């Protein structure tokens, strides 16, 4: 499989604190990769660098072979990467429909087409009943789904999910897992996800990348990685399944 | 023109600039801690100026002596304003707070207009026409006293924030709101106190300013804008920056007024603002913007 996303030696410091150190990994086209690690390992920083929110001090990020590091977030999105925020950022004063529509406009040439697309995605994420509701009135699990819907609506080749299952009930988690599986199987959507809910990670991922103290300490198939002593020590040792 | 004229104008500009700097310092302190933009800043200053004028014309009380009680009155006004009006707006969107203070400013200016009329009012102190000669330099006594007073008050303020417990507590609030709450600081009270201190600054400033210019109600918005320009020029949240910006703007106004026409002097102020925003948007002494 060819790599859709290649992260090559990125480093990032915040006023002396090393958040990422020479991080490299590949996300093959059509795969679902889990990015895991203990709190403060640098997962979200890594996302932000890829998405263009913060600029890496060194290293390259390539999407389908083309460099995208140093791009603005909107350029990265138009290049084909959709992302969610760990702390959800809904357009609080707009309706669910309008929220998703804004995302869909990225993928459509007309507002009419975007409305249709947004409608479909709202349906897929089980928000149909809430389509007219103001985002501020949604519950947290609903907001998480809205976050995913918006990112999905932009028509990404790569979807980056930052803890979208945290705080969900097990049934809701299963629903999300099933959804991502379908999207991956039917549309060939590539997914990179940060997740603490191991149940979801193990159910979804075809590969895992483990970050600790800003460094990649293990990468490979889930079964292999979870058996790695270094991983067990730093991560599973603390937050055992 | 001989060089002495430039030098004299420059010195008088710097002295006026110190008073401007103190005014901007008040704004900067309020913004830095309470995170509220005091859009009524200049209006509060004109209130202080009218107080000084009224006290002088009624009882011949020297504005520099009245500086302390006037600052106290403005302190109280600031405290009440923060506690009563602004505090409920702390978590409202920025534009909401801004409009609240626009309303307060609008009421203040026009209340002054109703109370005192549109004519300019000033004070004639015994030293109004006195001056000190330092070699080729001739310095107006008025400006010298005002500048000196501004430096004294600013120095006091620096000392307060550096050495007193309350000053440190206020700085803690500014650095980390949640942290300040966690360690048990009464943030609401400290916010009100900060707003009051910032207001006292403009109160003191107003008493000095009447030595330099006559007061009219529309001066309020002009000074509000001037204070903002200074704070942005000096760097938002930097106390030393506010003073530096004040001096820079005072100097520019004076020299610009000399080279062109005095009525166009504020155009140079805006030119400085634009230059700063173009080349150093965080201000002269400000921290880098993200």
């Amino acid at each position, binding site marked *: 499989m060819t790599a859709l996303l290649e992260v090559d030696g990125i480093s990032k410091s915040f006023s002396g604190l090393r958040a990422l150190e020479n991080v490299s990994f590949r996300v093959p086209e059509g795969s679902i990769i889990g990015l895991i690690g203990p709190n403060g390992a640098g997962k979200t920083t890594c996302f932000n660098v890829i998405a263009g929110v913060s600029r890496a001090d060194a290293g390259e990020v390539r999407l389908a072979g083309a460099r995208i590091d140093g791009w603005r977030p909107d350029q990265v999105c138009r290049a084909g990467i959709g992302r969610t925020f760990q702390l959800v950022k809904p357009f609080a004063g707009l309706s669910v429909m309008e929220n998703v529509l*804004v995302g869909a406009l990225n993928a459509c040439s007309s*507002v009419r087409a975007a409305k249709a697309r947004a409608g479909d995605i709202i349906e897929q994420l089980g928000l149909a009943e809430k389509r007219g509701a103001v985002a501020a009135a949604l519950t947290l699990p609903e907001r998480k789904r809205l976050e995913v819907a918006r990112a999905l609506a932009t028509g990404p080749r790569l979807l980056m999910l930052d803890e979208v299952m945290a705080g969900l009930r097990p049934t809701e988690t299963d629903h999300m897992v099933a959804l991502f599986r379908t999207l991956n199987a039917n549309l060939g959507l590539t997914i990179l996800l940060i997740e603490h809910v191991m149940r979801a990670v193990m159910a979804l991922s075809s590969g895992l990348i483990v970050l600790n103290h800003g460094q990649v300490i293990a990468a490979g198939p889930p079964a292999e990685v979870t058996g790695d002593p270094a991983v067990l020590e730093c991560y599973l040792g603390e937050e055992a399944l | 023109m001989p060089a002495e004229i430039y030098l004299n104008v420059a010195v008088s500009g710097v002295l006026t600039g110190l008073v401007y700097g103190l005014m901007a310092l008040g704004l900067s302190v309020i913004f830095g801690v309470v995170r509220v933009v005091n859009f009524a800043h200049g209006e509060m200053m004109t209130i202080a100026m009218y107080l000084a004028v009224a006290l002088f014309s009624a009882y011949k009380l020297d504005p520099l002596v009245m500086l302390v009680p006037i600052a106290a009155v403005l302190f109280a006004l600031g405290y009440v304003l923060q506690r009563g009006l602004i505090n409920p707006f702390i978590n409202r969107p920025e534009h909401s707070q801004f409009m609240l203070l626009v309303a307060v400013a*609008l009421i203040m200016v026009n209340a002054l207009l109703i109370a005192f009329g549109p004519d300019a009012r000033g004070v004639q102190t015994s030293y109004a026409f006195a001056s000190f000669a330092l070699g080729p330099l001739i310095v107006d006594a008025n400006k010298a006293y005002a500048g000196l007073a501004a430096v004294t008050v600013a120095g006091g303020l620096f000392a307060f924030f550096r050495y007193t417990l309350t000053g440190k507590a206020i700085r803690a609030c500014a650095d980390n709101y949640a942290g300040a709450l966690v360690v048990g600081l009464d943030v609401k009270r400290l916010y009100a106190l900060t707003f009051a201190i910032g207001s006292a600054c403009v109160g003191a400033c107003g008493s000095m300013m009447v030595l330099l210019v006559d007061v009219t109600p529309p001066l309020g918005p002009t000074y509000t804008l001037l204070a903002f320009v200074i704070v942005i020029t000096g760097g938002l949240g930097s106390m030393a920056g506010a003073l530096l910006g004040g001096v820079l703007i005072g100097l520019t106004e004076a020299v610009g007024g000399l080279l062109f026409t005095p009525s166009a002097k504020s155009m140079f102020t805006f030119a400085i603002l634009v230059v700063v925003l173009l080349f150093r948007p965080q201000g002269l002494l400000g921290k880098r913007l993200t």
Partner: protein
Amino acid sequence: MIPLLTDGVPRRGLKLLAAFSVALLAAPLVASDYLLTVLILVLYFAYVGQAWNIMMGFAGQLSLGHALYVGLGAYAAAALYVHFGVGPWLGLWVAMASAAAAGATIGFLAFRFGVGGVYFAILTIAFAEFARIGFDHWSWLGGSAGLFLPVANYGGNDILTLRGSPTMFYYVMLAMTASAFVLCHVLLRSRIGYYWLAIRESADAAQALGIDIFRCKMVAVVVSAAMTSLGGVLFAFYYNNLFPEQVFHISRSIELILGPIIGGIGTLVGPIVGAFLLTTLAETLSEIMRAVGIDLPGIKQVFYGFCLLGVVMFLPDGVWPPLGRWLGLGREEGDRGSGEGKR
């Protein structure tokens, strides 16, 4: 075209709108001269309020210096007419271009670093003040002594040079206000409209969804500035005199934003409702003061101040959202919703 305009608008709303339009069209037939001048003022504030609302209500960028665009429009059209005999219909293009250029400059300085908010608001005031002082010293435009247009001949209405009776100005102003309303309605349902709302609600999220924030904000400033300048053109030809001290003054900018704030920021109907409420209340107040025989020059502004204070404190979404619900019109698209949006 028609479905584009009526789509998603409740039937009841259309009926009310139609009734309201008819009343406005018929007003000059019954209104006294005085009432007509008040109505012209109402329409003027509704128009410029609508233009300001594009920036603040739609894109979330607070401008406190819109008098700049009014003034630039007024001076551009008036100067062309006075000095070169160029009529307002040609002059308005110059007016729009100069206001748009000024807006773009301010926007560029403020938005380039992503620091909107306070910086932007201050810059807008600073530029308006800059223009006020600059125009005061610009003798070609009359300087502080003012620029005067040849006084209108009330004998006939010449729509080409905008010389005529208040009734003519009323209809021109009404046409402009109606066009602005329709334009904003269309904008809100267009791509850029949705982008603006997204930026207003959360700039970070908007950017993550592929929106070029800088460009969208620039478009908002330019469109709003150009629209506002048209209000200035009409202002110049209606009042026939321009003084920098009055046209560019900060209190003009404040007056201009009160309507949409009181009516409801970000709503289409808000600026119109706000302008009606505020202007009629202020005129009533003036009338009462005159009747009682008290002459207090600042009283109207104090009244404005308390209106603003009251609305900001107790009706943060403005008068229209609750009024609209009461009329059974429900939520309007682009509405601030619950108002607990930002922060």
